[in-house]
């Protein structure tokens, strides 16, 4: 179970995402090497590893953002609900189902809080004001931001604090009703209080979504993730139950990394 090609023992578990023999390149650079792992529905899965190990590349492959980089390519298979996301499906549809939140909060600076949240819906052609209002409120509530901004919806998204801006970006990602939420170091630019709120939010969101988070902060992975994957030089070294990985890792390399014996 706690091996490079992770297959959890509970064969009846439902996997939201199945990754098989995934390889990714940036031009000649082989960034991901034969990654196979399954991601369970309604769970938080953390990807850890040193800088440049392929963490961000891995999650960018999960919603086909990797291919937006010039000279980037991918081989292998990624199945979302048993459907190969690279087999002739419009990547826009995949990105609607698999939302993403980035390291630095990036609300649209000229838009109000309201418009930021519903931007994706409007782009998808939703014009009904009632529907937009409902989606906006639901998304802000899910992102635990509604109570803080409900009286200031016309203010610019940039007027919020860093932590609030990140939750606004999470609300924006949730508004289009994705099934999977990818988070690339979502709290690395935030203070400990804002980080705590994002972590609580992630835990509460897994009831509705499958979450994959890249983090440099191993304590964060230990706090919020159900499963943790350790990547090193593009290879999946170990993947399994978070508590087990942090108490008794199976691989010497994982042990050395998480105990800070190499960086």
């Amino acid at each position, binding site marked *: 179970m706690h091996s490079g090609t992770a297959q959890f023992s509970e064969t009846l578990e439902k996997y939201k995402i199945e990754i098989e023999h995934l390889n990714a390149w940036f031009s000649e650079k082989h960034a991901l090497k034969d990654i196979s792992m399954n991601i369970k529905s309604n769970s938080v899965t953390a990807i850890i590893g040193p800088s440049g190990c392929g963490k961000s590349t891995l999650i960018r492959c999960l919603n086909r953002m990797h291919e937006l980089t010039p000279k980037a390519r991918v081989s292998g298979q990624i199945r979302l609900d048993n459907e190969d996301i690279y087999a002739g499906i419009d990547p826009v549809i995949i990105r609607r189902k698999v939302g993403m939140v980035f390291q630095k909060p990036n609300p649209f600076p000229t838009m109000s809080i309201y418009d930021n949240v519903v931007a994706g819906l409007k782009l998808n052609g939703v014009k009904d004001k009632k529907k937009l209002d409902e989606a906006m409120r639901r998304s802000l509530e899910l992102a635990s931001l509604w109570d803080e901004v409900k009286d200031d919806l016309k203010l610019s998204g940039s007027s919020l604090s860093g932590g609030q801006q990140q939750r606004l970006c999470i609300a924006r990602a949730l508004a289009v009703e994705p099934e999977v939420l990818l988070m690339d170091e979502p709290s690395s630019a935030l203070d400990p209080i804002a980080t705590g709120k994002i972590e609580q939010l992630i835990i509460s969101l897994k009831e509705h979504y499958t979450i994959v988070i890249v983090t440099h902060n*191993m304590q964060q992975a230990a706090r919020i993730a159900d499963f943790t994957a350790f990547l090193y030089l593009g290879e999946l070294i170990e993947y399994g139950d978070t508590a087990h990985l942090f*108490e*008794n*890792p199976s691989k010497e390399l994982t*042990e050395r990394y*998480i*105990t*800070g*014996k*190499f960086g």
Partner: protein
Amino acid sequence: MRLELTRLMDIGLERLKNMTLDMARLSEKTVSTAIDAYKEGQNVTEQIFRWSDELRILQDEVSDLAIEVIARYQPVASDLRLIKSCMEISYGFSRFGRYAYDISQVLGIFSDISMCNKTSIEDAGKQVKKMIKVSINAFAEQNIDLARSLSKMDEVVDKIYLDFVKNAAKAPDVDLKCALSGTLILRYLERIADHATYIGDSVIYIVSGERSSRK
């Protein structure tokens, strides 16, 4: 190429190991003194009490340092297992002190027991001393083979204790003073042997992550 890092946490872990080894040496001396005093009929209760109390204080210090290292460095994997085990092992060493004190008190309760047959206690005492040494060496060297050997050694002490109790129960002309004092001392020795075995379990856990089903 991997960059090898010196970690701030290592200073704390080294101190934790050294404090636990200090306890190990003191607990070994305490138990040996109590066993030898029984054989020679000496009253060493006061001395044993002081050492036992010192062990209790040292155990608190180990716990405090362990908590501090956890709070400051958020250890994981083998570091975390070492810290958890140092807390458990230091408890084991403090129990050695407490049982040594209980042994020394038996002489006070029964005064002269020089007429009693001491063979069982001497045999169990010898085995327990050996087990304490093995448990300390297993911890100091993180030696999983030594740690595993304790379980078999413990069976010897268990047998001596149970044989003594059974014989005392069925002997027609049993000397009550000898039977009671012998049972008590053997019971304390048997508990020390158990704790030595638990220390072995903790060493196995530190090295391999394997948990024991004992206790």
